[in-house]
């Protein structure tokens, strides 16, 4: 026969379990929030949905105060320009909280496979950086932005 104290203990177990899950998730969440990632999302969509960018940095995660590169593939199939006009890409970065950008210039090279190689990026301070991609095809021009925390 089940002892009434067993019911109490079951409830206590469940309450304790829930409390521990919450605390653990809080700890894990706090670690990610406190820890800097320097990681880019793998995909990014432009402001009006016309372009989808696939991103990859070398090295990854993005280092503090060291030159790094990025390879960007642009999918322009949803852009309001279905002509054979080439895709054009430019990138810049700034620290919105500090109100300044990089001290280097980004050089964009188009690779044979159509991807874009971005060189000369250097985030010389820890903190949040905002990377802005200007993408254009014909007369269609949109921006895509991504925040990176170092």
């Amino acid at each position, binding site marked *: 026969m089940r002892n009434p104290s067993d019911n109490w203990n079951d409830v206590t177990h469940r309450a304790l379990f829930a409390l*521990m*899950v919450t605390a653990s998730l809080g700890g894990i969440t706090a670690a990610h929030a406190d820890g800097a990632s320097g990681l880019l999302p793998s995909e990014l969509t432009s402001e009006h949905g016309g372009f989808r960018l696939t991103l990859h940095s070398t090295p990854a995660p993005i280092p503090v105060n060291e030159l790094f590169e990025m390879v960007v593939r642009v999918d322009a199939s949803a852009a309001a320009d279905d002509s054979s006009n080439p895709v054009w890409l430019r990138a810049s970065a700034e620290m919105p909280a500090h*109100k300044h*950008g990089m001290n*280097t210039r980004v050089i964009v090279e188009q690779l044979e496979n159509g991807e874009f190689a971005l*060189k000369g990026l250097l985030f010389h*301070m*820890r903190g949040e950086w905002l990377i802005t991609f200007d993408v254009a095809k014909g007369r269609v021009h949109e921006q895509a932005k991504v925040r990176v925390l170092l």
Partner: protein
Amino acid sequence: MSRRRFASCSSEPNARHYGWLGPLYIVMALCTGSCATTAPTSAVEFSSAERELLLTLSPLPPPPRDETNAVDGNSEAIAFGAALFFDKRLSGNGDVSCGTCHDPAKAWTDGRSLPQAQGTGIRNTLSIWNAAYQRWLFWDGRADSLWSQALHPIEDPLEMNSTRLQVAHVIASDPSLAAQYKNLFGEAPSFEDSQRFPTRGGPRAHDVDAQLNWWQMQSSDREQVNRVFVNLGKAIAAFEATIVTTEAPFDRFVADLRAGRPSNALSASAQRGLKLFIGRGNCAVCHSGPTFSNLEFHDIRVPALNEQMPPDMGRARGIAELSADEFVSAGYFSDQPAGTRAQHLAFLDAEAAVLGHFKTPGLRNVALTAPYMHQGQMATLREVVEYYSKLDTAVAPADPNHIEALIVELDLTEREIDDLVAFLESLSSDP
């Protein structure tokens, strides 16, 4: 009814009573952030994020080899460079050497707001401590290697006021120097023919006659002189690269932290100062890494030393000078024109908004290198910290397109100022 003991941060749960949940509780207790956040240090607790940042500040690794200088690290080049560093014959009037302003007895600087050599300089003398770690040299970064930097003062009219031809003659006419040069770089030209090689001459010479002498030379002769001049710079740089700070009390504190043991390497005041430095003070955002410098340029809105000082464009002028300099890392005289230093030069943004910006100086041994700031405006470390606390003398940003919004009044208490100064003093190498 049996009483159960539940998990807490200080004790393990009693697994025996919880069946399959018991081990899970143990794992989850160990994962709970608050249990793992802090480890005992000493007077001040540092969070896990703060500890992670502290570990990036120490230890100071050996300086990177300068690939653009083939004699970097060469013991004979270091000895030759040391001899040149203190040789006053490299100056126009024979009264000044590199060691005049970079006095080893004064922490490789001169203890003055502005240097006094052949004239009075316009910027504070940076210490040579840890110069080998720098990406850009001078307050405005107008040199991108240590050897290129070493050549500038020789021909600067306010510093050594000499010319590269004069220096080449010194080497050629001194048997000891000539032998050391030959051992490292091969035999130097004799330069005996005064028609081909005048006594004084160089493109940066202050006087017009010396400039005319230079440009009237055969280009092949100019290249010979340039090669000797550059090699002297490389030897001097090899010597300067050995001027590296050693372990400081701060480093021992971080070593204890890394090992997970309590530390009394820093006083309680210095520990509180450290916490401010990496936290609310935001100092470590720019004074980052083991040299406590991000190697780049900022405008912290410090006023000029006095009203007589001319406007100083800082980094903006430095970038312009780099673009016109033949002695850069990517240039003909570099021993690695396609390396990392050359890459930094290639990606330099000539249009960057850096008017009036100056290089973040490193802070190791900073307590020994007063006065401070690019014109030596501040006599003491306390004055520096008080400046950041109140910003009451701060001027408007020099470049409206680049505002370092991180520079805000910290409103520190007197105790906090003392603590920050104590921390900065803990960065001094052991005597």
